[in-house]
C-alpha cells in the first residue's frame, strides 16, 4: 500500500455535508420550475386484471388539467435489463399485474385539480385469477402472469460445479434445512419523486437514482429518443440501498406527461406509493443441503432458492444470483450446485437490495454452526478452515486477489471473546458470527468501467467530471478526497460535476459496489496524468529533477530543497501559455470476464476484486415474550483501505441497523396482493433506541489494484449482519431459525422446540 498519504485515510469532513446540514441540499421534490405542473397517478386496484378500456376524456375536461396519459400514449416498448427480461411496459395496456401498478396519470396546475382529474378517469377491467405464493405460481394450472414465462418461472439460474451427488454420498455429515424470509422495504427516507422537463426536443430528468446512465438508456428506449436527448441530471438522493437502481414507472409517467403538456412536471410519490409502487424486496426461501467431512471441511453444497419476484423481471437474473455469489466468494466449495428460481407473482416489483438474500445466507451460516458443533468445532474454526484466501479461485472461477477474511474473523472473535462465550452460552443468551464476501463491481457489459475528465482552471482550482453517483454513501466526497491527495490541493478547491448523463461518461453508478474500486480508480488515473504534466513543467521551471517534485497545499516544490517552490496555479497558467492546458482523462475497466452471463455462462472472473467482512452479534432472548435484545454488535470489514474511515464506519453502522437489527424487526406483511404495512408505523425501521452498541472495525488488506488499496466498504456487513443474529439465536436456543424476521412468535416457537428436544 502507498504510504505517506496526506489526506487519503484521514477522517475528513465529507464534501456534501455542508449543504445537507443547512437544508440547502436539493432533493427532487424541492425543485421548482416556471410553469411546473403537478402529476398524480391512477393505480390498479386489482392484483391481476385485463385492461378493457381506459377513458381519459373526463380527466382532460377538468379545468387546469394540461395532460392525461395512459400506456396507450407510449411506444408499446417493454423494458428489461436483459434481452430475455423485456417484459415491463411501465404503463401496461394489456393487463395490470399488481395492486398499485401505474395505469394512467394526469398533470395539472395544482394537486387538487390533479386529484379531481384522477377521479374522472374510467378504466374497465376484467379481473383475472391471481397468484401470490411462488410455490403455487410454479404449479401446473396456476394463473399465468406473462405468457413467455412458463409456470411463472421468470429466471432459473443453474450452477453445478464438481460432483455434488457423489461427494454427498461419501461425506461424514450431511444435513438439509429450509429457511424463509419475508421481503423487506427499502424504506429510504425520501419517497420517490421525478421531475421531467421536455423542451425543444430535449428531455431533462431529475430523480433519486443510483445509475443515471442505465436510467437514461431505459427511458431513451421506452420513448424512442436518442441518448443525447434524454438527460438524467444530478440531484441528491435520500437513500437508495439498491432500490433506486432501475428505471421506475414514475419516470416514464412524468416524461410522457411533460412531453404531452410541453411543461415541466413534478411527480412525488406518497410514503405508501413508495412502498407499493416503486420497488420492494424479494420474499424468499432457501433449501440448503450441506455435506462435511469429519474435520469440518465442506465437501458439497446443494442449494435451492426461490425468490418471489413480484410482477416483472426487474434485475431478475442478478437478484437470483447474487446471494449465491457472495457466498461462493467467501468459502471454498469443491462441489456445489445452485438452483435459483425467480418466480413471477401478482405483487409489486422486486429489485436488488443491499441486504439481499437473508434466508439463503443466514440459513447457510446458521446450519454450518450446528454441523460444526456436531463435529466438535466452533464457528471460528469452521470459518477459518473453509474460508477462501488470496490467490485462490472461487467455485465459478473468480480469482481472489486480496482477502482480509481471516483477519476479520480473528479480530471480531478476539474482541468479543467469542469462542469462550459461544462454548458456554448463558441460558438464552447467544453469540453468533456471520461472514460474507462481495464483488466490487460485477459484469455490466461496457457499463462496467468508468471514465473521468479533469481540468485545472487558471486559478488552480480543479473541475472533476465523472459518472460517479452518491446515494448517501459518500462516493462524491471519496473521489474528491482521492483527487485532492494526488493533485496536492485541498478538497474544497475541487468542484465535482457528476451523475449527469449529458456531461459524464459511462459509469456503473452506485450499483454493484463499484464506486470505490472502479470509479475512484478512473479518477485516480486522470489525476495522475494531470499531475505528471504539472511535475514536468515545474521540474523545468524549478530546475530540479522530476523525481524530486512533490505537490501539497496548492504548491509544487522540490523535496530536497523545499525552498524551491511555486504555486500550482502558476504551472497551470504556464501550461495554458504553452497551449497544453492541464486536462486529463482517466479510464478504468476492471479485469472481469465479459463473456460471463448470469444464466447462460455463469463462470469466469466476476469482479476486479472482492471485499470481506465478519459480523458478530450478541443477543439475549426473553423466554416468556420471545423478544430478542441485542446489546452489542461487532463488525469488521476488509475494505482494502479506508479512504475516509469515518465514512466507512458510518456504512458499517448503517448496515448493522438495516440488516442486523432488521433481522428482528423488518418484513413486509401481505394479505394476498395487499401490502399490509406500506407505512413507517407498521413497518419497523429500527429507531435509535433499538440499536446495539456497535464496534465498527476496519481491516485493510490493501488490494493490489484498488485505488490506494481500496475496495468496497459497507455492503459486506449488510450481507452478513443478519447471519450473525441468526447464528446467535442458534447459539442461544440450540435450534435453527425457520423464518425471518425473528419476531417474538417465531422465537418462542424456537424456544419451545429447544425445550422439547432437550425434553
Amino acid at each position, binding site marked *: 500500500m502507498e504510504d505517506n498519504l496526506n489526506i487519503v485515510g484521514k477522517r475528513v*469532513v465529507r464534501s456534501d455535508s455542508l449543504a*445537507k*446540514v443547512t*437544508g440547502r441540499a436539493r432533493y427532487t421534490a424541492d425543485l421548482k420550475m416556471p410553469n411546473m405542473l403537478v402529476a398524480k397517478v391512477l393505480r390498479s386496484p386489482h392484483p391481476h386484471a385485463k385492461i378493457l378500456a381506459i377513458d381519459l376524456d373526463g380527466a382532460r375536461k377538468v379545468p387546469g388539467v394540461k395532460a392525461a396519459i395512459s400506456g396507450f400514449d407510449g411506444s408499446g416498448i417493454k423494458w428489461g435489463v436483459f434481452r430475455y427480461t423485456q417484459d415491463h411496459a411501465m404503463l401496461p395496456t394489456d393487463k395490470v399485474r399488481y395492486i398499485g401498478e401505474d395505469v394512467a396519470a394526469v398533470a395539472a396546475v395544482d394537486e387538487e385539480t390533479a386529484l379531481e382529474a384522477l377521479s374522472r378517469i374510467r378504466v374497465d377491467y376484467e379481473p383475472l385469477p391471481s397468484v401470490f405464493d411462488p410455490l403455487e405460481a410454479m404449479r401446473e394450472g396456476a394463473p399465468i402472469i406473462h405468457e413467455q414465462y412458463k409456470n411463472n418461472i421468470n429466471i432459473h439460474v443453474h450452477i453445478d460445479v464438481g460432483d455434488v451427488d457423489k461427494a454427498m454420498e461419501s461425506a461424514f455429515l450431511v444435513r438439509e434445512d429450509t429457511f424463509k424470509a419475508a421481503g423487506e422495504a427499502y424504506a429510504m*427516507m425520501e419517497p420517490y419523486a421525478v421531475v421531467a422537463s421536455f423542451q425543444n426536443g430535449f428531455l431533462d430528468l431529475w430523480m433519486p437514482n443510483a445509475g443515471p446512465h442505465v436510467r437514461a438508456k431505459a427511458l431513451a428506449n421506452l420513448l424512442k429518443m436518442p441518448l443525447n436527448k434524454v438527460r438524467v441530471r444530478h440531484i441528491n438522493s435520500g437513500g437508495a440501498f439498491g432500490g433506486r437502481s432501475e428505471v421506475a414507472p414514475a419516470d416514464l409517467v412524468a416524461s410522457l406527461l411533460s412531453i404531452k403538456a410541453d411543461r415541466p412536471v413534478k411527480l412525488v410519490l406518497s410514503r405508501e406509493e413508495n412502498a407499493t409502487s416503486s420497488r420492494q424486496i424479494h420474499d424468499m426461501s432457501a433449501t440448503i443441503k450441506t455435506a462435511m467431512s469429519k474435520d469440518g471441511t465442506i465437501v458439497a453444497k446443494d442449494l435451492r432458492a426461490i425468490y418471489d419476484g413480484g410482477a416483472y423481471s426487474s434485475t431478475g437474473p442478478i437478484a437470483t444470483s447474487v446471494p449465491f455469489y457472495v457466498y461462493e466468494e467467501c468459502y471454498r466449495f469443491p462441489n456445489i450446485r445452485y438452483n435459483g428460481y425467480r418466480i413471477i407473482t401478482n405483487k409489486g416489483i422486486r429489485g436488488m437490495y443491499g441486504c439481499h438474500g437473508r434466508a439463503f445466507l443466514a440459513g447457510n451460516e446458521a446450519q454450518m454452526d450446528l454441523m460444526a458443533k456436531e463435529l466438535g468445532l466452533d464457528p471460528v474454526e469452521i470459518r477459518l478452515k473453509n474460508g477462501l484466501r488470496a490467490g485462490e479461485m472461487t467455485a465459478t472461477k473468480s480469482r481472489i486477489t486480496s482477502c482480509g477474511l481471516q483477519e476479520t474473523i480473528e479480530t471480531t472473535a478476539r474482541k468479543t471473546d467469542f469462542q469462550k462465550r459461544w462454548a458456554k452460552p448463558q441460558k438464552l443468551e447467544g453469540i453468533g458470527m456471520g461472514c460474507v464476501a462481495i464483488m466490487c463491481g460485477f459484469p455490466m457489459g461496457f457499463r462496467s468501467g468508468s471514465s473521468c475528465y479533469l481540468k485545472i482552471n487558471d486559478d488552480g482550482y480543479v473541475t472533476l467530471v465523472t459518472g460517479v453517483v452518491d446515494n448517501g454513501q459518500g462516493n462524491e466526497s471519496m473521489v474528491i478526497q482521492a483527487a485532492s491527495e494526488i493533485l496536492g490541493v485541498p478538497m474544497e478547491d475541487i468542484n465535482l460535476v457528476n451523475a449527469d448523463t449529458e456531461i459524464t461518461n459511462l459509469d456503473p453508478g452506485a450499483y454493484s459496489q463499484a464506486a470505490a474500486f472502479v470509479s475512484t480508480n478512473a479518477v485516480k488515473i486522470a489525476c495522475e496524468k494531470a499531475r505528471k504534466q504539472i511535475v514536468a513543467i515545474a521540474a523545468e521551471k524549478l530546475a530540479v529533477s522530476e523525481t524530486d517534485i512533490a505537490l501539497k497545499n496548492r504548491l509544487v516544490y522540490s523535496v530536497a530543497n523545499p525552498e524551491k517552490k511555486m504555486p500550482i496555479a502558476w504551472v497551470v497558467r504556464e501550461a495554458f501559455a504553452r497551449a497544453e492546458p492541464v486536462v486529463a482523462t482517466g479510464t478504468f475497466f476492471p479485469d472481469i470476464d465479459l463473456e460471463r452471463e448470469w444464466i447462460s455462462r455463469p463462470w469466469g472472473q466476476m469482479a476486479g476484486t472482492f471485499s470481506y467482512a465478519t459480523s458478530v452479534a450478541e443477543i439475549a432472548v426473553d423466554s416468556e415474550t420471545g423478544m430478542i435484545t441485542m446489546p452489542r454488535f461487532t463488525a469488521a470489514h476488509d475494505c482494502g483501505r479506508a479512504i475516509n474511515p469515518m465514512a466507512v*464506519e458510518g456504512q458499517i453502522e448503517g448496515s448493522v441497523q438495516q440488516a442486523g437489527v432488521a433481522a428482528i424487526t423488518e418484513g413486509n406483511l401481505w394479505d394476498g396482493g395487499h401490502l399490509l404495512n406500506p407505512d413507517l408505523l407498521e413497518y419497523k425501521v429500527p429507531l435509535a433506541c433499538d440499536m446495539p452498541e456497535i464496534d465498527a472495525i476496519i481491516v485493510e488488506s490493501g488490494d493490489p489494484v484498488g485505488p490506494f488499496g481500496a475496495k468496497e466498504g459497507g455492503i459486506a456487513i449488510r450481507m452478513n449482519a443478519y447471519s450473525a443474529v441468526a447464528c446467535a439465536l442458534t447459539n442461544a436456543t440450540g435450534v435453527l431459525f425457520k423464518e425471518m424476521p425473528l419476531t417474538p412468535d417465531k422465537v418462542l416457537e424456537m424456544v419451545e422446540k429447544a425445550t422439547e428436544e432437550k425434553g
Partner: protein
Amino acid sequence: MKKRIQFTVNGHAVAVKAESHQMLLEVLRDTLHLTGTKYGCGEGECGACTVLVDGASVDSCLYPAFEIEGRKVTTIEGLMGARNQLHTLQKSFVENGGIQCGYCTPGMIMSAKALLDETPHPGADEIRRGISGNLCRCTGYVQIIESIAKAAEKEQGNE
C-alpha cells in the same frame, strides 16, 4: 376555506394565505419555499418534517396551518447565526459524520436542538430518546448520537 395567517419564520414576520386542510409543512415548502424541511411520510412517523414551534419540536406534516397564527417557527434554514455561522449542532454533525444521504438531517437537527434546549447535558440514552421520533435509514444513528453529544459538550464549554 382560505384564510390569511400571520406568524414568524426564522425571525421574519410573514403573512400567507392557507387552506383549512393545509399543514405547516406545505406552507413552509410550497408557499415560503423553505424546502430544507422534508416530507417523509406525512403521517407523523418519520420526523423528517420536524421544526420548532415556539421552541418545541413538532411534526410539521401534522401541524394545521391555521394553528400557526401568531407563533414563532424555526426551521433548519433559521439555525445559522449571523454571517452564516453554523450552529454548534450543525457544525458537530458535519465534523462527526452525522450525515449520509442527508434526508433525515434537517429534522434530526431540529429535534436535537429541542432536546439540548431542554436538557443541555443529555446522556446517551436521553439523546436516543430525544431522537426516537426521527428515523434515519442510513447511519445506524451512531454518528448522529455522537454529533449531538459532542455539540452538547461544546455548548457547555461555551457557557
